[in-house]
């Protein structure tokens, strides 16, 4: 026969459980943030260490809004036709009508 639980004991367990979840998550945040910091620092290091750093990439001037775009879509190295195709594919894959999606920018990624 299962034993019913004391209300006071249940309250303590509930509060303690919620606190443990927070504590565990807080520690996890700390660990994830530390790992993230270490990763980003490692990724940034070679740039600082380079003896003659390459000139900073010139900030591209703000692109005009793509013709016919609903919103403020900006295209970088992407022809209008390709952009239209990409947006249509994304809408089709997501099964969301294209007019319910918002594309901010489309940029061609150049592999080094």
């Amino acid at each position, binding site marked *: 026969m*299962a034993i019913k*639980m004391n209300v006071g004991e249940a309250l303590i367990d509930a509060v303690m*459980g919620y606190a*443990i979840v927070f504590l565990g998550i807080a520690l*996890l*945040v700390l660990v994830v943030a530390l790992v993230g910091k270490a990763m980003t620092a490692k*990724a940034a290091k070679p740039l600082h260490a380079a003896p003659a750093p390459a000139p900073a990439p010139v900030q591209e001037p703000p692109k005009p809004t793509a013709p016919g775009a609903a919103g403020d879509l900006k295209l970088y190295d992407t022809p209008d036709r390709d952009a239209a195709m990409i947006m249509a594919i994304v809408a089709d894959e997501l099964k969301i009508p294209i007019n319910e999606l918002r594309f901010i920018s489309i940029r061609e990624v150049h592999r080094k």
Partner: protein
Amino acid sequence: MDKILETLKGLWTDSGFYLFFVGDGWKSLVMIAVACVLLYLGIKKKFEPLLLVGIAFGCLLTNLPGAGLYHMELWDEFLNESSPYFHSYGRILREGGLIDILYIGVKAGVYPSLIFIGVGAMTDFGPLIANPKSFFLGAAAQFGVFFAFFGAVLLGFTGPAAAAIGIIGGADGPTSILTATLLAPALLGPIAIAAYSYMALIPMIQPPIMRLLTTEKERAVKMEQLREVSKTEKIVFPIVVAAFVILLLPSTAPLIGCLMFGNLLRETGVTERLSDVAQNALMNIVTLFLGISVGATTVASRFLTIETLKIVALGLIAFCFSTIGGLLVGKLMYKLSGGKINPLIGAAGVSAVPMAARVAQVEGQKANPSNFLLMHAMGPNVAGVIGSAIAAGFLIKVFGA
């Protein structure tokens, strides 16, 4: 002539139709009606159909008198410490029906964990890595778990049963099933049905609470774009999280271990075939077995009780209070960040992925049509999966002995 009549009589008394009118047979008819309602909700209303249709059909099969696909009495003896068949899978294999054999996967906690491999393989933790503060919203949204647990104790449930009911508030089906299997196997049917039904009802349950607890100004907040997360970070994340959380709370190992394993398959870039199998074939096969075998536990004599009604009510309370917990901490973060965090994303901390994040997106856009919260809400949403696994791990640890 007598021989013919006797044969016909024998056929009639052996038939399920006859058994409906013997003893508590009418209860089976009620359960068949319940199964039909669940099938309607799954097929017509599309309430979590992948699982609800299986659960409903399992419910239908198990309540057809004489079908003999699932034998509750075998499992009662399996769980009875004084029985010679205590924990005897051999007897289940020898004497059980088809669903008894499939149910072994639930009983051994295999299906929920395998589903978590698929969930991990389908989850992008990028938004969470980019903004680790989202983790707190995933933790906050476990409020309903502990609130409902306390409520269940007040309503007279035992500690383990209350813990299994409370975890419905985690809005995570596999976690609910695993916890119920370990802590309150007799309540598995109603708990699973409540969990999946409320998950499907999130777009109806959450918005009124969101509008009640937040101002128009808060809901309209546009959040800054998330930073880009490197491939290496995404690969390291599941390894670190699995090791850290399991070391902290070993009882979370089946859930967190499988979730993070699935995610690692997704992110490594060298196990695409395995990731694909985990996301599709494995997930579908396990969902199929899980649904039908969980549905089969809804035997009329166990399901048609006041306790089921209490579980259904407590499940709703759990979902509401989880949403409230997430929103309140979201509001706190809004204040602390000087209005940079939209508190609506707190409601996405209940883990129902990606439904809860979509609800936050929709509500945010109603307040500000140029608001795009989906990616921001995905952080707390996937954090909720980890949060509910930790909550379940705690409850299993405390009440599992």
